[in-house]
């Protein structure tokens, strides 16, 4: 059994025929070659596979590709470019908010949604917001710093 789906990803329209059991994370990486989205635990604990679906951060390993039919998705490839990082990516670079880089796509996509929905006025709020994303390198300090800096910048530009 396969089902036809149409998905807009990073502004580009994709059509495919997929098995119902295909995970969105595997669809992005294996079918479309969009390997920026990382796959860690594959059961919703580590947050590495987080993408934005219709404006909300979502675990792509807990989403069937068939359920993305008609959706608009942003993956880490849709944020900035190496030449022109977006504001949050820029802060990750400035604050050294990554080491090995495995968790970074999920941290960025989660960070984008946190910046949209929460005041992030204290480090506690930032840490609570990041509690669903595991990093085994940084001890989180510089990731928190990067999001703190991005939140301060956001507050300057959107009063």
């Amino acid at each position: 059994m396969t089902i036809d789906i149409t998905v807009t990803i990073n502004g580009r329209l994709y059509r495919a025929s997929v098995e119902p059991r295909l995970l969105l994370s595997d669809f992005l990486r294996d079918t479309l070659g969009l390997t920026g989205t990382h796959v860690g635990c594959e059961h919703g604990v580590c947050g590495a596979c987080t993408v934005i679906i219709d404006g909300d951060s979502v675990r792509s390993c807990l989403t069937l590709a068939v359920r993305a039919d008609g959706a608009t998705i942003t993956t880490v490839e849709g944020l900035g470019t190496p030449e022109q990082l977006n504001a949050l990516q820029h802060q990750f670079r400035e604050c050294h908010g990554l080491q090995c880089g495995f968790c970074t796509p999920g941290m960025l996509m989660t960070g984008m949604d946190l910046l949209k929905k929460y005041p992030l006025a204290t480090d506690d709020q930032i840490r609570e917001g990041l509690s669903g994303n595991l990093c085994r390198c940084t001890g989180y300090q510089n990731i928190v710093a990067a999001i703190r800096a991005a939140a301060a910048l956001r507050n300057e530009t959107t009063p």
Partner: protein
Amino acid sequence: MKPAAFAYCAPTSLDEAVRALQAADGDGKVMAGGQSLMPLLNFRMTRPTMVVDLTKIPDLSFIEQRGDRVAIGALTRHADLEFSALIAERLPVMSAAMPHVAHLAIRNRGTIGGSLSHADPAAELPMLAVFYSATIRAQGPAGRRDIAAEDFFVSALATCLDPDEIVFEIEFPVLETHTGWAFEEVSRRFGDFALACIALSIETRDGAIVDARVAVMGVADTPLRLRDAEQALLGARGDAAAAFGAVVRGCVAPNSDIHVSADYRRALIGALAEKAFTRAWQRAAGGPK
């Protein structure tokens, strides 16, 4: 690709969804937000032959006031409850609990109907349903029925639903006369399942409690409403926190597991009860909300 193969349908009405479950003859599984079912599928801990996706059925996502109750559609997402002004005003304990429900990316997809039907004993929404004495409304081949929350949860991950019944909405009575409340939870990591959790709401008159509501979770196979603890609070005044903690400790008989021992859990729920009492009393006395 980790789940075992299954057939998939996305019906556009509840009637059609129930028929699909009947046709699957006990081997069908309902998917709402999928945030509990997908890990089970990925681990192949469950291998349904048919997944019935509810998300194409219209009008199952809503939060509305109905007289002295708040009705919530089964497909309403946790994030919708978290950010709802109506929930904050009418069901403040639920509003306080929602940030503790997993993480933002999970709350963006997980639904109230899914969480109740999954019936994890350490999840917030099943406890809130018991706490508020909610009515859970389900549809099956024989039509619709109303189930009291306390009858709904049978054991860990088990409800009284038949395999071809689907929760479509939940009604929460508002505790209109209550002015003090608290929600306290401890988990290993913020957003993880609770080690222990308590919800408390009180009505006071002339400086004493005249009505109380108490529910706990994480300390038994199902969430529990503690009527003995509610009784013990009647007539209590602001100095009753320690006594309330002792009563709550005496009401539960938790098990040890890989996370903590039974003794730790019992001590923890008592400590949370004391904290909750103090917070609820402050609120009832007009202190900081």
